[in-house]
């Protein structure tokens, strides 16, 4: 192998099945984010619609919920659920379950806020015009409000997916073996034979995340342009 490749530690990736191990680590992280994304979108849609109802109780509860999520770092939430739940309720959650609970809790709030924002951004005149045309409440929602809401919501929701994928990298801090952890293991195992592995491995992890998120970001931006 050429000396340049060895000096920056890329050579480890071609040894054994190291590259495959890194990729499967990335998959472990992506699996958690995908489950959380699906749950968050479903829960967020329902919550967001509830929030547009003018009920004081819902307003207060949703306000507290959103504000909690807004100011608490996801890491703190992870620690509370993973370490706190075990202590306080005797629940022995696996790290995967704990992280799915936390990311869903966080993602649902973000999604609900996006849904609420998209719904209230539809001018009242749209509702009034539909009623004036003799549409029923359901028809107004189906043919007038929802199509416009979806167009505004879609780019933002897709953007949320990339944010959730990026945040999943935190799960290594509660001991899940994902791409960063696998990277560390590879570096440790090859400490003698390729001392510069840290550079090559972490640069690769960096690129892997970029490859996972960039297309989704581009899609979000494309849809945003189309909606405008």
């Amino acid at each position, binding site marked *: 192998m050429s000396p340049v490749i060895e000096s920056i530690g890329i050579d480890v990736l071609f040894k054994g099945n190291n590259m495959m191990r890194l990729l499967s680590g990335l998959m472990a992280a992506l699996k958690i984010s995908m489950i959380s994304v699906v749950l968050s979108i479903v829960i967020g849609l329902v919550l967001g619609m509830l929030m547009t109802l003018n009920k004081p109780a819902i307003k207060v509860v949703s306000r507290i919920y959103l504000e909690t999520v807004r100011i608490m770092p*996801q*890491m*703190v939430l992870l620690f509370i659920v993973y370490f706190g739940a075990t202590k306080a309720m005797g629940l022995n959650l696996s790290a995967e379950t704990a992280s799915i609970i936390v990311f869903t809790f966080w993602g649902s709030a973000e999604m609900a806020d996006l849904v609420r924002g998209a719904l209230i951004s539809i001018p009242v005149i749209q509702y009034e015009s539909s009623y004036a045309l003799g549409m029923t409440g359901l028809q107004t929602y189906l043919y007038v409000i929802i199509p416009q809401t979806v167009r505004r919501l879609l780019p933002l929701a897709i953007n949320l997916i*990339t944010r959730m994928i990026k945040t999943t990298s935190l799960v290594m801090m509660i001991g899940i073996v994902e791409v960063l952890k696998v990277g560390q293991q590879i570096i440790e195992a090859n400490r003698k034979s390729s001392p510069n592995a840290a550079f090559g491995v972490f640069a690769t992890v960096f690129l892997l995340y*970029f490859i996972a998120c960039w297309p989704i970001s581009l899609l979000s931006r494309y849809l945003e342009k189309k909606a405008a």
Partner: protein
Amino acid sequence: MDTGALNSYLPLYVRAFFLTVRIGWTGIALSLAIGIAGAFVLHFKVPVLSKVIKAYVELFRNTPLLVQLFFIYFGLPKAGIAIPAETCGILGLGLLGGSYMTESLRSGLDAVPVSQTESALALGFTKRRIFMYVILPQAVISTMPAVMANIIFLLKETSVFSAISLMDLMFTAKDLIGLYYDTTECLFLLVVFYMIMLLPVSMLGSFVEKKVRFGIYGDQV
């Protein structure tokens, strides 16, 4: 809850709090500096530089801070660039935040309608004055909510610094839980200190958002 434990842990948390705040706000200052410079470059379409800035923004917006820090802290020394942990934290946060700020500030500058520039031209303003008195004030006001949201996001991101062994709030909490098993007390203090750090900024953010709603011009009512 054990108040004795709370009292004995408090000084450790206070120290960690100041470290987190210091790194956090220095990083935010750096990210604003990068963001302002980047937004100008993109807005004025500076030839080669704007390509570089675009690539930088894409790269850092689409990767997690944790991965960036691992690369800067563990990877770069192997290429001969060793940076102390605290500087790494500031640099990582600054680079991540810089990409978000660039994007927000640029979209603010670009969002000012062309008719504003044209009207100013018709009134005989020079290019420099159009930018100073017409574009900039409107852009600054319209990006304030996004900038505040970025600041909150960056302050929350400080929680990953423990990964590069900075003794921040998360590190202290994890360490104490491991040593004494006072999980409830440690998590309680962790939440309290993050609230002290973020609640005022969040409230300021909501206040700013309400204020600037009156600062929107044209047909966006």
